[in-house]
């Protein structure tokens, strides 16, 4: 039992490390070669995990091989346009200037129902509202609506909204992030003073405090658990 337990732990941490090294795309939208790696790694980890008859290295070596192969393909697809086309494929235009491209849909084996479903998922219920629809290499559909159907932007209304930067979380779960606090050009004394204004005397009582780009502080205190 402890043998299986230890093997499971080793393989679990190895797969977590490998997926971290492979990058964020592994857990988001996958390219075909990344999907293959994810599926194969799951199987390579699971089999030696429970079968003590298989040497652990028989699971570890193929996982590491997939890791370096994936890193190599990522590198090629990053450095070479031709390589990227070969490895990831190219995006396909399915709707051009409001017109469905039947031959492209046939080439991608993408039927009308698939297209309508993907458009609905993007919030376009009427195909007549779409100017361009592009099938991306990771299988998602990007949609450009017709000019008269796209949402109004401040530029359309000749408005100049104030700059909105990234809010900086300075206290998370009672712990002050001094690095972020410094990035916001504030210090602990300022923070304590601000928290006092919210009726909070101890930082450890704060669930979340963040500073927006205008220097305003958002504070939420922890709930008192009875």
């Amino acid at each position: 039992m402890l043998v299986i337990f230890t093997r499971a732990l080793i393989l679990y941490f190895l797969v977590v490390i490998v997926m971290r090294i492979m990058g964020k795309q592994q857990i988001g939208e996958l390219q075909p070669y990344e999907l293959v790696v994810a599926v194969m790694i799951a199987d390579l980890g699971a089999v030696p995990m429970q079968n003590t008859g298989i040497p652990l290295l028989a699971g570890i070596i193929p996982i590491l091989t997939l890791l370096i192969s994936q890193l190599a393909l990522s590198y090629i697809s990053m450095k070479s346009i031709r390589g990227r086309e070969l490895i990831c494929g190219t995006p396909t235009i399915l709707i051009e200037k409001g017109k469905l491209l039947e031959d492209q849909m046939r080439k991608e084996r993408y039927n009308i129902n698939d297209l309508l479903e993907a458009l609905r998922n993007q919030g376009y219920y009427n195909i007549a509202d779409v100017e361009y629809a592009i099938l991306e290499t990771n299988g998602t559909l990007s949609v450009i609506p017709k000019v008269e159907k796209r949402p109004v932007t401040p530029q359309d209304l000749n408005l100049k909204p104030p700059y909105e930067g990234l809010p900086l979380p300075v206290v998370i779960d009672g712990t002050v992030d001094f690095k972020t606090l410094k990035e916001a050009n504030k210090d602990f004394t300022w923070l304590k003073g601000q928290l006092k204004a919210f009726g909070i005397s101890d930082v450890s009582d704060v669930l979340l405090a963040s500073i927006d780009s205008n220097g305003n502080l958002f504070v939420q205190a922890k709930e008192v658990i009875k």
Partner: protein
Amino acid sequence: MKTAIVITVVVLAFILALDLGAYYYLKDTAMSISQNIEALPEKIENEKWDTATDDLNKASNNWSSVKGIWAVLINHDEIDKIDMSLVRLRSFVQYNDTEEAMAEYNTLKMLVEHIPENQRFSLVNIF
């Protein structure tokens, strides 16, 4: 968070207890079956086939009583191998085949004794 820690500790303690209990149970029962057939080589060499059959009956009964629990703890292939080895050894003893009986005795002894060793928490077994 507290619940998660409690569950983790309970599961770890359960696995540890189960592993230790299983290892010592397998070790004790494997030793007991080994002892049942300990005198077999001498009896086979001296062609005392009746007493050898008695020893084999004892070992078979002992094996039948522990087999059910072994099936919960170890790979069923190992149990099948021991079953087959016992049947072969019984046949060789029944037909008074000294050489084959000696070879099969050693196989059976190895099959029974290596089980607890395979279950032991060691670097060799992990990797």
